[in-house]
């Protein structure tokens, strides 16, 4: 696999905290399974030095297949990205990592997103619909109504959409995890029940989701975010503590790599808090 040269097709703010960038130049074979990611080189010099990891989504444009990424301006690299104009040349490495494992379509799917965490889950949700899953609940937490991403897109026939905002400007007034907990308390008196959960968001939120899922006996996959230098498993910078279930006792914890063993993990394999 080589680094792929790509060109910025468009780069626009779509919410107070979020930009959408579309990159053309990928081959027709290029595909990103939901939950996998790409490493984007921001420029061709050494500043910024490292590539940035992004959840990627393959979309159709008038110029053929393109990569769609969404980002918040959180630092130096994303700050530079926010000022990029169409035709800027960048480089993409990927797709990388392990994505979501999708069980059989008859299950009920609980998708729990916090803030920008909705981005990889939106790709997952589209894949679920494409593979004939039709019992899908999306719990989307955001700061305000205007920070809630993909609201229109995710209000489809197959999806029950449950927003939650910090200020109550739409949906449930409070944490998305509380919304999820209430939903399950009312709805799932007995354990198991064929329900599966997928979550992405801030680590405190993921810990809460993992706790709720565990309480109801629901298998839960979480997608993690981490600083990473390489994205291909060699720098060991994106370490996360995992539990080896085969080795009981205190020595069963070890560091795995978000970029190779993840970024999607079974929540029971992670040592919380992360």
């Amino acid at each position, binding site marked *: 696999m080589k680094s792929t040269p790509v060109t910025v097709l468009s780069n626009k703010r779509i919410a107070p905290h979020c930009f959408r960038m579309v990159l053309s130049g990928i081959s027709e074979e290029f595909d990103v399974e939901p939950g996998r990611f790409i490493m984007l080189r921001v420029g061709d010099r*050494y500043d910024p030095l490292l*590539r940035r990891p992004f959840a990627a989504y393959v979309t159709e444009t008038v110029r053929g297949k393109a990569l769609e990424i969404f980002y918040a301006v959180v630092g130096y690299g994303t700050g530079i990205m926010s000022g990029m104009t169409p035709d800027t040349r960048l480089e993409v490495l990927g797709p990388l990592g392990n994505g979501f494992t999708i069980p059989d379509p008859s299950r009920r799917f609980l998708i729990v997103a916090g803030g920008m965490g909705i981005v990889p889950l939106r790709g997952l949700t589209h894949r679920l619909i494409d593979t004939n899953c039709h019992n899908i609940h999306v719990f989307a937490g955001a700061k305000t109504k205007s920070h809630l991403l993909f609201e229109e897109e995710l209000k489809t026939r197959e999806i029950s959409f449950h927003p939650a905002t910090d200020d109550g400007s739409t949906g449930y007034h409070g944490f998305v995890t509380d919304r999820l907990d209430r939903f399950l308390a009312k709805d799932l008196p007995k354990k198991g029940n064929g329900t599966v959960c997928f979550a992405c968001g801030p680590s405190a939120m993921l810990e809460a989701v993992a706790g709720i899922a565990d309480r109801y006996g629901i298998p839960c996959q979480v997608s993690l975010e981490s600083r990473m230098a390489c994205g291909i*498993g060699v720098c*060991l910078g*994106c*370490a*996360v503590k995992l539990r080896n279930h085969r080795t009981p006792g205190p020595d069963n914890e070890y*560091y795995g790599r978000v970029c190779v063993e993840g970024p999607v993990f079974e929540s029971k394999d992670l040592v919380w808090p992360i």
Partner: protein
Amino acid sequence: MADLTTKIGKLTLKNPVLAASGTFGYGLEYSHYLDLNELGGIVVKGLSLHPRNGNPPPRIMETTGGMLNSIGLQNIGVEAFITEKLPDLRRYDVAVIANIFGNTIEEYAQVARRLSAVEGIAGIEVNISCPNIKAGGIMFGRDPGQAEMLTARVRKATLLPLLVKLTPDAPDISEVARRVQDAGADAISLVNTFVGMAIDVETATPFLSTITGGLSGPAIKPLALRLVWEVARKVTIPVVGMGGIASARDALEFIIAGAHAVQVGTANFINPSICIDIINGIRDYLHAKDIQNLNHVVGSLRIKGNEAASD
């Protein structure tokens, strides 16, 4: 075509570009991105007698033109390397150099002895320069006496070509290099990372869990180059230069300064096939300058007037 081979003790490398330890995994990870057979060599991730978990996250932080890391020498241990990685590595025609470290001098010797007993290891690089572990590592590299003692002990444990990787954070790196040479090393690798730190001003906390970490990348290149130039003049064994190399021209600077070979580290993270670009770039340079042999470039620095002039 120009001759790119270079010698490190009795070890002949097909070209002077090695992938640096800690940036190239166990080599196999990069087989999707480049032809490992084309490399001058691979220095694998530091190996210890027993597996190590490494430091808690956060472990890395980008800085201007560089990155800080505090991985803490996480590795699978020498036995797992021999049984799980080496059989696959042996299928390639590339010099595999095992980077080793220990908590004690005796542990270093044990790891070296174990690796000497197996097929497929071309050399050993002794890491006395890691800034991110509590015992061992840099503690041996800052003190010329300790460095000498450790090198002599490892020398007794193996007949393989021995490289000793030095820290730039020694009070007198040339003295450490000389003593390591006297103790029987075949080459000096320098530099490992510089100790640095970065602070999140929003929270007034360090970005790394260990507060300080090792700085690498283009930001350190001028500092590393100066140390390589200085040490290469003071030892008779070959110097393997590294520190921020990200292009053929960077590599050539180190070679002109006196390095017989170079290692490419952090740049592998940004462009996984960069070692090949650098090898090709060196070949193009020799061709353009009509130089038949890389060795004619080694230490070819020209200084106007007095060749010993510095300041």
